[in-house]
């Protein structure tokens, strides 16, 4: 398969993730949709690594995975803190920054 096909799949998944980030109201699901966008970027990186025949792209993809994992951990920590503090777990309700 040519690289263009992989890029097309990556673009579609990225756009779906972006629409999800814009529409979802649960912060947990916003994180899930961010995950979609990061994975779409990963797919493009690996497709270009195959294109060039070098392994450097794979290292880059692994670093992106590390960043995604860190982001998920901190984001879910915030969700748990919101739940513990009896703050509504809904981004529409969180209009102000306090504390």
């Amino acid at each position, binding site marked *: 398969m040519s690289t263009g096909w992989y890029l097309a799949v990556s673009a579609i998944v990225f756009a779906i993730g972006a629409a999800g980030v814009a529409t979802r109201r649960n912060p947990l699901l916003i994180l899930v949709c961010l995950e979609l966008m990061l994975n779409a970027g990963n797919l493009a990186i690996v497709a270009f690594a*195959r294109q060039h025949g070098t392994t450097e792209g794979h290292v880059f993809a692994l670093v992106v995975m590390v960043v995604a994992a860190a982001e998920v951990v901190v984001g879910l920590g915030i969700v748990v803190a919101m739940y513990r503090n009896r703050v509504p777990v809904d981004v529409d309700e969180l209009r102000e920054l306090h504390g």
Partner: protein
Amino acid sequence: MDEILFFVAGIAAVVAAAGTVFLRNPFYAVLSLVVHLLSLSLLFLLLYAPFVAVVQVMVYVGAVMVLYVFVNAYVGGGTEPQGGGAPTLRAFSYAIGLTLIATIGIAILGSGLQVIDGSGPENVRASFGSPSEIGELLLTKFLLPFEAASFLLLVAAIGAVVLARRRRGALPGEERMVAALDLLAPTGTGSMREGVGAINPTPGGFSSRITPSQGPSSPPGEHDGGGDDDGDAR
């Protein structure tokens, strides 16, 4: 064979991605993300990236998904209230997504790059994407990003513990434990719960305490005015 596998995995990835966005039950959305990640790892295998595919399955499907499912069960969010907000805003958001597809599609397909039509070198060398080569790169050429990534993971782990830790503030219906340090601490510096005004409300602050009968994911209308002192924990 390549083409069949690509189309199966690609269509599964796109459909599962759409599922995470459109399914209303958060649990089903997370499970749909699992399907998406598995089909994506199949795509990685087709791109001769076995190590990345295995790491994808282990890190995402193994670890990150457990986190998601666990937090989902802990928070216990039911189906999220949809359509309650502004419908025009939702339509606008989907329009943004469609515009993004069109823009990136034009950028990729209209770029006229010859290389995109090809699939790279025909015969991939055996060491391409192997763990040994990736490990060598990580410890020689990309040593600094490698160390930075490990440091980032450390910071994230500590940050998550600090964020989600049980704080001094008592939950409703619990005895508040008084420590000696409480006498020394100025008002409003203790816990995040205190910070959002549930324990020591600051005048004019935003109070987001919910009555215990309602869940935290209950529809709006639970705010009991701004900043009146609900001194349940004093």
